Structures are given as structure tokens and as C-alpha cells.
């Protein structure tokens, strides 16, 4: 039996009013992270024993800066959605759950903005005057 109105069925947003967006964004970021993580591991191995200057030169390279920002962006979305699922699975107290979900959002925002700002600062300062 389907008691949905035709309009709500067409919208497909469901009870939480967001449809399959959680599922979908988790998968899209997962696909994006496959090449980004392989690139990151390769780059990290290359930089492991290098001095400060080499690391600066690395981030100053435009394609590396772009990949780093994409890696940060996709990782933050992916980890925020993943931790949200873990919280919803294990934290049942209403207040504690709400607090954890908000802290999760704050964690993702703070770490993401901090990482991105560091990359942008290094990149911009390395532009020859």
C-alpha cells in the first residue's frame, strides 16, 4: 500500500526531507577519493625525507594545490557523513546524539577550513612577486 501523495512520491525526499543525498554524497566522494588518495600516498612517500623548501615547492605547484584542496574537500564530506552514521548507530540518548552530531559538524568544518587555509596561504605566498 502506498499512501504517499503523487507530489511527495515525485519529489522522492522521504521522511528526513533529504532523499538519498546522504547515500549518494558518500558514494560520490568515495569515487573521487580513489585517485586522490593514490596520488596523496605517492606524494607523501616522495616528500617523507625532504626538507622544508621541497614541501613548500610541492604545495606551490598549482596542480598539487588543486589536488590537495580536492582531497581535503572530499575527505571532509566523506568523514562527516561516515561519522554521522556511526553516531546514529551507537548513541541513542536524544541529547547526547544531538550533541555528538553537532560536534561532528563542527569538527569537520574546523579541520576542513584549517587545512584549506594552510594550503591557500602556502600557495599564495609562493607566487613570485
Amino acid at each position, binding site marked *: 500500500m502506498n499512501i504517499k501523495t503523487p507530489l511527495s512520491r515525485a519529489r522522492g525526499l522521504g521522511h528526513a526531507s533529504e532523499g538519498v543525498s546522504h547515500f549518494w554524497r558518500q558514494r560520490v566522494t568515495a569515487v573521487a*577519493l580513489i585517485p586522490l588518495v593514490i596520488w596523496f*600516498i605517492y606524494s607523501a*612517500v616522495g616528500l617523507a625525507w625532504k626538507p622544508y623548501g621541497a614541501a613548500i615547492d610541492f604545495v606551490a605547484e598549482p596542480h598539487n594545490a588543486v589536488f590537495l584542496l580536492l582531497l581535503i574537500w572530499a575527505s571532509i564530506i566523506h568523514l562527516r557523513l561516515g561519522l554521522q552514521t*556511526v553516531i546514529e548507530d551507537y548513541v541513542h540518548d536524544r541529547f547526547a546524539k544531538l550533541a555528538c552530531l553537532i560536534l561532528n559538524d563542527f569538527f569537520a568544518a574546523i*579541520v576542513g577550513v584549517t587545512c584549506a*587555509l*594552510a594550503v591557500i596561504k*602556502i600557495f599564495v605566498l609562493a607566487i613570485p612577486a
Partner: protein
Amino acid sequence: MRSVLSKKGHLSGSEIKKMAENTPRQRPRSPFLTIYRWPVTMLTSILHRVTGVGLALGMLLLACWLVALALGPAAYEAVQAFHGGVIGRFLLFGFSVALIYHLLNGVRHLFWDAGHGFDKDRSEQTGQLVLVASVIVTLAVWLLAYQVRG
């Protein structure tokens, strides 16, 4: 059954005890977690979640590295020195093995989402493959890293 029922229509504590004593012990029982033989699919599923949470916290390692690099040579050398120490290397190794496992098993999940390889035998096989491959790839990455050092 009727003989052990009291007149009140429900079982008293001593009556339940008596029933339990008279029940044969050979009946099949549900295995508890500690004596359950873990299927590979169960192990890989739990590991996927554990490594996922670990990697989320491990994002702080990347944040520290980037912030130190943005702050200047002194901060960067300090973070690099920490990474080179015993605790640092342990954290980096844990981060790398979690990252590689989560990456490989994540590909397995994407295939499942697309409707492939979700049957019992196939998921057991790919689970074993992912476990072995993540150990080999992690060791290869670290071997390469020490090779690069020269």
C-alpha cells in the same frame, strides 16, 4: 507444559527453574560473539568502520602537517621530527594501513552498491583478497619510502 503451570496461569520462578532443569541440553543454541567463528565478511565490515573512524581522527595528522608547513621552517622541522620518532612512525604506519585498507575495501563496497559480487562466496573471496592486499600494499609503500631515502 500444562502440568508445571500454576493455578494463576503464569509460571513462578521455581517452576521456570524446574522446566530448565528438565529441558534436554542437546538443542542447538545461538552462538555468542566470543565463541562465534568470524566470517571474513563480518571482520572486513567491522574493520571498515573502525578504520573509517581512525582515518577521520587521522585527518588531524594531515592538518598538523599542513599548518606546520604554513607556519614556517621551525614548526615544520618540529612536526617532521615528531613523525620520525617512535610514536610518530607508529601513528603514520597505523594511518597508512588504515587508509590503504579503507581504500581497497571501499572499492569492494562500491562494486556491491553497483550490484556485483554480493553473494556469499564472492564476498568471502574478495574479503580475503582485500585483507591480504592491504598488508602487501602497505608494506610495499613503506619499503618504497625507505628506498627513496637511500
